[in-house]
């Protein structure tokens, strides 16, 4: 295909791969902030036990879409959502759907680490305590397991009762990942989890993500193109509220199908 033949039209249907084992299915999703439409007809599937990166210039809707996957947008009054988001075949916007159980099923890690002003231990068991779990042995086990999974155990095991706020930025972010894992979600959403971290801490988080995908499905929003190419299995490119192209990451970064995608990943615009 010569360059001139590459499609540029945003009106065309997005190019999406065949996903064998979707855990999240988004169908015909439209989202409005008041009068302004932020997402247009999103149809996509997130494969289970894989890392899917959402990329695109600021304002393209990638974070908004991520927040649709655990109904965080519900907290904003002016938001109106049409369409279907299914997780494990349940429509999470369906009537009678239990949002509390959704939050348990879908964990979230934010751009800025947000540990509670409590001990490391209490940060991790907070969710379980709320759910009524108070058996010490059980809590101890969860703390160790989730810290191990987030590759933080060796660094903090001797000071579990110290304040979480005394940890470094990178450690705090891994604590937030551990806290998300503690309630055993099936999907973990990450909104630019490394943007405030130095390269070493970023590397640690990326290694953690690589390990986590064996048990969890990860959807990550990132502005760092190299990060998307390093850690994700699939990459979805968004522009102006539309899904433009989604493909296996190796394909996206060697031979994207659309010129728009090519221009974005090569830094020509965006």
């Amino acid at each position, binding site marked *: 295909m010569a360059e001139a033949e590459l499609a540029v039209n945003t009106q065309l249907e997005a190019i999406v791969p065949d996903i064998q084992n979707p855990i999240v299915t988004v169908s015909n999703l439209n989202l409005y902030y008041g009068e302004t439409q932020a997402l247009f007809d999103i149809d996509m599937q997130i494969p289970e036990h894989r890392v899917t990166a959402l990329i695109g210039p600021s304002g393209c809707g990638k974070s908004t879409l991520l927040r649709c996957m655990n109904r965080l947008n519900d907290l904003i009054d002016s938001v109106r959502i049409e369409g279907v988001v299914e997780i494990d075949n349940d429509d999470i916007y369906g009537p009678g759907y239990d949002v509390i159980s959704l939050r348990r099923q879908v964990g979230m890690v934010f751009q800025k680490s947000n540990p509670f002003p409590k001990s490391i231990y209490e940060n991790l068991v907070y969710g379980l305590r709320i759910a009524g779990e108070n058996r010490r042995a059980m809590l101890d086990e969860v703390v160790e397991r989730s810290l191990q999974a987030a590759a933080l155990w060796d660094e903090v095991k001797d000071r579990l009762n110290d304040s979480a706020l005394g940890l470094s930025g990178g450690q705090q972010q891994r604590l937030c990942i551990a806290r998300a894992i503690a309630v055993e979600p099936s999907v973990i959403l990450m909104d630019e989890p490394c943007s405030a971290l130095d390269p070493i801490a970023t590397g640690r988080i990326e290694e953690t993500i690589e390990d986590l995908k064996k048990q969890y499905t990860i959807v990550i929003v990132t502005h760092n193109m190299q990060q998307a*190419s390093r850690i994700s299995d699939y990459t979805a490119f968004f522009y102006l509220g539309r899904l433009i192209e989604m493909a296996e990451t190796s394909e996206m970064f060697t031979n994207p199908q659309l010129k728009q995608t090519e221009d974005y990943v*090569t830094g020509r615009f965006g």
Partner: protein
Amino acid sequence: MERTLDQHLDHLKGELLKMGSAVEESIEQAVQSLVERDNHLADVVEEGGHNIDDWEVAIEEECLKVLAVQQPVAGDLRLVASMIKINYDLERINDQAVNIAQRARLLNQMPQLKPLIDIPRMAVLARGMVRDALDAFVNRDVELANKVRKIDDTMDALRDQIFRELLTYLNTGMSSTVDQAILLILVSRHLERIGDHSSNIAENVVYLVQGRIVRHQKEELRAGEE
């Protein structure tokens, strides 16, 4: 938007093309040294070979630097990857030209066995292949690249024809005749190798434009023709 990366890529492309022209000239001079029995031209080709070697190293180093520092992806990545390979093939083509010049110097010491017909024909084709392959690279012209790949078959056929023709001389048992025949067979082999490397360059053009690796897919090319 002009990116820093574009400046590096443009510079690299320019260097590669300059090297390509020098390599084309080497082929021309090497064959001329044989046809016109001109040892001086053979020297020129051999000396030029060292410059090409240095050039190749410089281009490869710059490509690697661009990979490390700019981390190109998608079309940019394919361009750098193609240039690394094209660079290598051009240098190998030049080695073949130097080989021809060396054979020519030996042949020029002997009385001419027969007028050369097919070897100059192969030489014209070989130069054309190099030029067309590089033009296809510059213009991202897959059609032209595929044309180059097809000519490679003609080159193979000519090499076989030259071999069959010279086989009769090999059977004469006269040592100077046999020596000459062997040298000419080698020259045809060098020209045919130039065709192979040009064909590689053409395949890299297809990869650059379409992202498909078409090496080892000659059959598909022929099938597409029918």
